[in-house]
């Protein structure tokens, strides 16, 4: 029956010729569709590379627009990893009642340690505190005129979260404990740092949004010019029966290429700037006794950067096509 297609495995049920033809057509349409996608992708890239100067201007603008927020993001994530190192700084010291037995102190420490909002808690007995105090001052208790140990036992609590509202909640719980005489916490600077980071984060987000709109406009305008320069061609192919999707496809790919090239260029710029700033930043942080921890863009970050670039460029292309393809109807 189907001598036309000998390679195809024979089906059990007899298939009519028209059904066969319909299937051939469907397969033909799909491969034609794939072929056109492939052709559009390569032709758009060729078009772009044929005018290297004008296309480079577009994707460089994309690259620079994306580099700024990405660098801020890098700086921010470096800072955040620093503050994790400083987690120890945000500790709370609980001074216990004078004369509380060490066993009670130990029990309370274990209870606090088990709480989810506490990263770590350790007990300093009155004797340990007194020994450490004398060692620090290099004198003994007789020289100070004390016969008894005047220091109370204490528990040092390292909170799990450095978020200021969670810290305040933990502080309230601790103040409620009957064995606790006094609480001393060193949290104000952490609070300040966190608020500062939140502020920077908002600034970076706003900047990224603003520059994203810039990329949208730049790509949109470039695609608009491309449509403008090929208006006659669009009119002709519409009259020859081209569908809307067929007409749009080369411009959509143009947008994808701009996004990809811009994204890759942005990655190169970010990496170059990070490399450039590495040694002065290390030297600067070392003066504060801090370990430099300059991060690079990881695989995921790179992927996000390039995909975001392609996504915004595609959106720009779509806006341009939506607005300007209508002007190219056959006359």
């Amino acid at each position, binding site marked *: 029956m189907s001598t036309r297609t000998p390679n195809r495995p024979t089906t059990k049920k007899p298939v009519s010729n028209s059904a066969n033809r319909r299937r051939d057509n469907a397969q*033909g*349409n799909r*491969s*034609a*569709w794939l*072929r*056109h996608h492939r052709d559009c992708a390569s032709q758009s890239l060729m078009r772009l590379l044929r005018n290297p100067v004008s296309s480079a201007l577009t994707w460089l603008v994309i690259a620079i627009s994306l580099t700024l927020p990405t660098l801020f993001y890098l700086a921010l994530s470096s800072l955040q990893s620093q503050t994790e190192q400083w987690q120890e700084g945000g500790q709370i010291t609980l001074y216990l009642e004078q004369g509380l037995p060490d066993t009670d102190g130990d029990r309370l420490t274990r209870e606090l340690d088990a709480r989810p909002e506490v990263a770590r808690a350790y007990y300093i007995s009155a004797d340990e505190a007194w020994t450490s105090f004398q060692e620090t001052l290099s004198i003994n208790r007789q020289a100070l005129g004390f016969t008894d140990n005047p220091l109370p036992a204490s528990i040092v609590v390292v909170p799990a979260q450095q978020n200021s509202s969670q810290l305040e909640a933990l502080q309230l719980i601790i103040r409620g404990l009957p064995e606790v005489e006094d609480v001393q916490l060193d949290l104000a600077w952490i609070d300040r740092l966190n608020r500062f980071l939140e502020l920077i984060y908002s600034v970076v987000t706003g900047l990224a949004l603003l520059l994203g709109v810039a990329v949208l406009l730049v790509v949109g305008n470039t695609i608009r010019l491309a449509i403008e320069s090929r208006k*006659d*061609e669009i*009119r*002709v*192919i*519409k*009259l*020859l*029966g*081209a*569908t*809307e999707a*067929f007409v749009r496809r080369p411009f959509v790919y143009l947008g994808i290429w701009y996004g990809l090239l811009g994204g890759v260029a942005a990655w190169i710029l970010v990496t170059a700037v990070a490399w450039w700033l590495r040694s002065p930043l290390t030297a600067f942080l070392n003066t504060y006794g801090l370990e430099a921890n300059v991060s690079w863009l990881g695989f995921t970050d790179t992927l996000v950067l390039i995909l975001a670039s392609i996504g915004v460029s595609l959106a720009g292309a779509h806006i341009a096509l939506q607005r300007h393809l209508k002007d190219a*109807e*056959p*006359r």
Partner: protein
Amino acid sequence: MIHFDQVSKRYEGGHEALSSVSLHIEKGEMVFLTGHSGAGKSTLLKLITRIEKASSGQLRVNGQILNRLRRSQIPHFRRNLGIVHQDHQLLMDQTVYDNVALPLIIAGEHPKDVTRRVRAALDKVGLLEREKYRPIQLSGGEQQRVGIARAVVKKPAILLADEPTGNLDPGLSRDIMELFSEFNRVGTTVLIASHDLGLIARLNYRVASLQDGKLMSTPFEGRRT
């Protein structure tokens, strides 16, 4: 094949380009459309190609009622038409081959079939050895023949031509008209808008004449459906 029933076209601003035109062109017929510039020839062709929509009346082309055609159906409808323009509307940055291949690429034909059919069409118009040229390197008559090759490469049911000999000298014009006659002989329905009355008179085909948007004479031939 092409049926105008009381078709009128009014443009915004009130100008009536066609008023109550009834014209029936049967399958396999070849018809000339004449009239002064501004008489409505171009408007009539634009209605058939669905560039414009009729204001009233019914227009049926290739079995489809054009006023009911959805926007998304227009491209597929147009693939059954071959259109030849006065200024041939070739893509100047592409080769003769690519220009002629365009309707086949748009229809998603297989590359093997494309090559075969483009060569056949170029052979028909006598330009096979010019396939690698750019249109700008060809003479006016040759460019027009490339335009015709592009119009017939998909073997359309209907061939439309708008002043196809408008820019050509009499000898070349005769050759072009002879080409259209050949396509008509193998069954293509042909409608040619032209004001070259001398040339039309020498060819023995039906003539529809437009004046101020009205059809003057349509000596009816063939059967009405």
